């Protein structure tokens, strides 16, 4: 674990992976007859070149922070929660119910309630696979991914059968009332006189930042966090130390599901303002890549989430501006995920060897890390 200095682990390897992914994407873009540099310029400019771009980038990033943190905490307990998609869908249901059922006078009251609603629904959806894993040994990868399908089917059923506005044709709920709408970055910044484009970026971005900090605090500054990490490193050792596997599995997965569910306050409450069918937009799966790339550290997750947000937004711009087809944008995003997630070892091992060779040289006065 200590073969690499911390900065190399957190920053250098992801940067190299990203560069490799971009080079391969560039080659693919060239093959379909487009200028890769122009494409890159459009993507970068579209993602961070204007307040409009930043607004959308950070809006998507907010989604990915929540789902990325959800995957990250499960990773620390060596649980591979790939059910973020389903947990976020259930979270969206919780948020929508809270927002629609009660006539909120002001968003400051609606937001905490929606946070509770989203978190409880998301956690509940994660609880069943967690319990099965802890007591029955049903593999969490299998159960969580199957729960994604159940969540999607459940949502469709509810939208079509009960939540749909009578007489409307589209399977979606009514718009949330005025009191349950979150102020956007445009509204907030207008108060202090900063002009900002109309984007869906809203106050839940701050909630996401708070969640990063809170998760860091939990993992590295509390006893529970230590137990989670100890359990993740070695289950027998943790058991020997008196840590209950059932308890840690359940708690880690409940927090994970709750974080995934929180995504809905950004997507459903902050942007769509109504419950629609595929509101999660694959963010649950992107969260896995974000957690991998961020090395399951809240700061890393935040940075990786912003990167993926930029990729999403830049990709959308690319599709608008050029003849690059939408599928191509997905290919570029997939390449980034492939290089940062799956092919991580390809860069890591040679780099570890390199660092080891440098460190072998005896340096007087430098303590071994």
């Amino acid at each position, binding site marked *: 674990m200590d073969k690499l200095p911390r900065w190399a682990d957190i920053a250098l390897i992801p940067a190299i992976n990203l560069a490799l992914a971009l080079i391969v994407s560039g080659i693919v873009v060239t093959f379909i007859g487009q200028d890769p540099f122009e494409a890159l310029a459009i993507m970068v400019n579209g993602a961070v070149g204007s307040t409009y771009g930043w607004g959308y980038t950070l809006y998507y990033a907010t989604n990915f922070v929540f789902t990325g943190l959800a995957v990250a905490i499960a990773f620390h307990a060596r649980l591979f929660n790939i059910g973020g998609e389903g947990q976020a869908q259930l979270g969206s249901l919780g948020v929508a119910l809270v927002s629609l059922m009660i006539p909120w006078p002001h968003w400051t009251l609606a937001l905490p309630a929606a946070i509770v609603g989203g978190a409880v629904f998301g956690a509940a959806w994660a609880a069943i696979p967690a319990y099965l894993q802890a007591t029955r040994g049903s593999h969490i990868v299998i159960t969580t991914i199957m729960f994604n399908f159940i969540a999607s089917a459940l949502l469709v059923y509810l939208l079509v059968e009960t939540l749909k506005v009578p007489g409307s044709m589209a399977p979606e709920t009514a718009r949330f009332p005025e009191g349950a709408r979150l102020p956007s970055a445009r509204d907030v910044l207008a108060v202090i006189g900063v002009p900002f484009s*109309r984007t869906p970026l809203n106050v839940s971005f701050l909630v996401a930042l708070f969640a990063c900090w809170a998760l860091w605090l939990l993992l590295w500054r509390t006893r529970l966090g230590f137990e989670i990490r100890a359990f993740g490193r070695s289950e027998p050792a943790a058991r020997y130390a008196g840590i209950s596997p059932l308890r840690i599995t359940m708690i880690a997965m409940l927090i994970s599901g709750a974080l995934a569910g929180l995504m809905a306050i950004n997507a459903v409450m902050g942007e769509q303002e109504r419950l629609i069918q595929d509101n999660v937009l694959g963010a649950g799966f992107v969260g896995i890549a974000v957690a991998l790339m961020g090395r399951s550290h809240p700061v890393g997750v935040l940075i990786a989430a912003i990167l993926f947000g930029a990729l999403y937004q830049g990709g959308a711009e690319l599709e608008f501006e050029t003849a690059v087809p939408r599928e191509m944008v997905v290919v570029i995003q997939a390449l980034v995920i492939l290089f940062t997630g799956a092919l991580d070892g390809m860069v890591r091992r040679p780099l570890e060897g390199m660092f080891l060779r440098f460190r072998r040289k005896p340096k007087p006065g430098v303590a071994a890390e």
Partner: protein
Amino acid sequence: MTLMHKFTTAAAVTALSAGAALAEPGLIIDLGGKFDKSFNESAYTGAQRWVEETGGSYMETELASEAQREQTMRRMAERGANPVVVLGFANASTLETVAPDYPETNFVIVDMVVDQPNVQSVVFSEHQGSYLVGLMAAMASETGTVSFVGGMDVPLIRKFACGYAQGAKSVADDIEVISNMTGTTPAAWNDPVKGAELTRSQISQGSDVVFAAAGGTGVGVLQAAADEGILAIGVDSNQNYLFPGTMLTSMVKRVDNAVYDAFQSAEAGDLETGVQVKGLEDEGVAVAMDEYNADLVTEEMQAAVDEARAKIISGELEVHDYTSDDSCPALTF
């Protein structure tokens, strides 16, 4: 630093081209795909016809998912597209909130009414066109059973089914009409496999003419009909050419005209907002007759269609519109 410079230059260039592109019309292709051989493709054809005739250019983008409707619509409006044409009822609630934010931009929505001062809503009298193809189906059927495959189960599609059933029953009161819907979500617009399965199941129940009103799913329906050797009726675009010999006709819904007219009138600067109903009279809906189905359409059929069409236009014959009271006298769902 040089890289940064490159980006800023690129930004300036994009900004310039965006300025130059002002007031081009924009078209947002809906879920189901541009080449669904039906609804979306009809809109695309209309836009292409406008390009060919006027040499103008327009902006086009294809919707990737339900959740990106709003971003796509805003992006189109912010890039200066005018009018922005959106396709399908699913855009209604998004357009309700987007349109007031861009009072200078006109929007056109097909298949749904959005009550905003800068929105033109184009709706079609699908029940009338469906009545005519129902009439033809009943006349062509030998088994006395005809069938309908819908896409997503929404009032709009029931309107098709209801018109179709009324047309069929007008030929013979005892004719049986089977109706199936592919699904309850937008995925039902693009599921040709399930469309084919439903058709086979209807054939096993005795149907020998099937009418598909299901977007991209319809391709599977028409294919299954061709494979099993029964007659099929296409929808939205003229689909007669797809399977010559088994395509009885197509209930053409001139989405292409709606798009073409919107583009054209925007160029002339006289786009009228408000509701526009396109029916049999102005060829907004019609029965497709061409060389591909000439052998299948008998003279009696043609005469009956012409007669019914004239009666509907004159008001002598009234076809019940499902969406007017959410019920159908000729068919139960």
